[in-house]
């Protein structure tokens, strides 16, 4: 996809994430909003995947380690045609194929079940390792949350990725500045995420996590570096691009209906037209 198409795709991911959560009545909107752009780049441009054959042998793999943000992933997968758009109406309802946390058994296109934080990154490291042992040249991508990096297991996984020089592993950190109980600094000061990932041996850079071009270019640069795992820190803001979430100081999990949701969707469309998407005049 071209950059403008990717931007439109990320807007659609946000729009359908809002509709999906509004139908359920509540959900993890804040962290879903902040990964919409990276998901658009991965599924719209970078990843070798086939919606008609989700398990194809040579595909690139993706693990959403922050599994509670599955609504955004589900929206991206549905928009790509991995499953019918109608499924999005069923999030978290009894008997659904779309549970709140990403589920590989129920959802075509989900490569690993996640939900207990800190583990998806390890599974992704295992996937990257398995692909290398099997002499495949595909890539493994993983998104962790910045709050998720509180978990010690995240750093265990990083040590392993570095030790085995898993250079076909790209880790994104959704640096949206907030976790459930407050800001990162308030809950558990990360000091410097960039310095930490560099110290753990990752080829690391920080980009505007809401700018699809910057994200895509960073991935292309990462692919040129061999011998090291890659970390792209997405400098973003929790709830960014979803006005109803931007309006809340703490938006990890919000309750809202379709009326409120459609107001935000209108604003997203306005921003796209004005060229101010995704953040509008949002003040950092």
């Amino acid at each position, binding site marked *: 996809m071209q950059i403008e198409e990717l931007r439109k795709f990320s807007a659609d991911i946000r729009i359908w994430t809002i509709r999906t959560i509004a139908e359920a009545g509540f959900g993890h909107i804040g962290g879903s909003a902040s990964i919409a752009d990276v998901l658009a780049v991965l599924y719209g441009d970078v990843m070798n995947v086939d919606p008609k054959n989700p398990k194809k042998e040579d595909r690139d*793999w993706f*693990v959403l380690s922050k599994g509670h943000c599955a609504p955004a992933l589900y929206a991206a997968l549905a928009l790509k045609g991995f499953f019918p758009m109608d499924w999005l109406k069923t999030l978290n309802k009894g008997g659904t194929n779309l549970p709140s946390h990403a*589920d*590989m*058994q129920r959802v075509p296109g989900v*490569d*690993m*079940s*996640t*939900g*207990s934080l*800190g*583990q*998806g990154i*390890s*599974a*992704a*490291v*295992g*996937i990257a*390792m*398995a*692909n290398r*042992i*099997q002499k495949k040249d595909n890539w493994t991508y993983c998104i962790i949350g910045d709050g998720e990096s509180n978990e*010690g*297991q995240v750093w*265990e*996984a990083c*040590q*392993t990725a570095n*030790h*085995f020089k898993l250079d076909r592993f790209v880790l994104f950190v959704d640096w949206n500045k907030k976790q459930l109980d407050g800001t990162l600094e308030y809950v558990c000061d990360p000091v410097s995420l960039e310095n930490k990932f560099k110290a753990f041996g990752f080829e690391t850079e920080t980009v505007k996590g809401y700018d699809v071009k910057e994200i895509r270019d960073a991935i292309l640069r990462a692919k040129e570096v061999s011998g090291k795992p890659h970390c792209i820190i997405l400098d973003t803001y929790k709830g960014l691009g979803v006005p109803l979430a931007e309006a809340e100081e703490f938006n990890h999990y919000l309750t809202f209906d379709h009326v409120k949701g459609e107001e935000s969707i209108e604003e997203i469309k306005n921003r796209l037209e004005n060229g101010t998407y995704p953040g509008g005049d949002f003040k950092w």
Partner: protein
Amino acid sequence: MVKLAKEHNVNPKEMRAIYGETLTEIAAENEKVVAINCDLCSSMGLKPFAKAFPERAINVGIQEANGCSMAGGMSAAGMVPFFNTFSVFATRRVYDQIFMCASYPHLNVKIIGGDAGVSATSNGGTHMPFEDIGIMRVMPEITILEPSDSVMFKDLLRQLADIYGVQYLRFCRKNTVDIYEEGSHFTIGKANVVKEGADATIITCGILVWEAMKAAEALAKEGINVKVVDMFTIKPIDAECILESAKQTGAIVTAENHHLIGGLASAVSEVLAENGVSVPFEKIGVGEEFGEVGDVPYLMERFRLTDKYIAQAVRAAVAKKG
């Protein structure tokens, strides 16, 4: 087919050596098999594997949580991972990792725990798993195994590599007594009757099978004819064998190198209760206490797991038959 060994001697080869040799053989035949180690590659006997297949011996260091979740990822990507560490770390320490990255997503992960129960010896209470079977038994769909000797261990390992799903196997890493003849083949989920009998049944597993056999021999001299069942598959338990034994002998004694809560005694009594079977029931195992340091003979006596205590339990059960 299962045959008993002609002589029951302590095998000069340690079980961990058997593990290393067997997994290496399996890996030679199955290129999907990988071993994930947590800085216990030597202790678990897997040096030969690492030498033969360095690219498939993944030593993650002292990172049980990461290693276990990685096993799930490797399974998702088509490999057959054997996750190896001491039993306490293979279960207690990584319980959520097993749940999240193996059981819940229905992946194919083999969890191999060394140092079952008292066989943790000088590593002591911190390393002595008496709770592992109990906590693993509530994990849906998991298979739980405890081999009683090296012949069974080899056979079960070969089967694990071929069957899909999550299995936990606990074993004693050191030397064990030969129970079975080389080449015996066991069916997972089907108990093996080591000895027939009419007066009571000892249902046991692991290193206590030999204790139960000695107890049965002593009891025979007293005129008590005991059936001995090697219940090496603790989950799914062989309910048919339990019910048949209860009917046939009218008394049940369980013996395990594990807490009395959650393990074999619990599993067997659940089967009896569910089926409305009321027979005298005694149990040998570890009570409400933690492990401690000591050698195996000391600990077997300390926790009342030897043939002497099993025989006492059988006498008590038989007496209750009236």
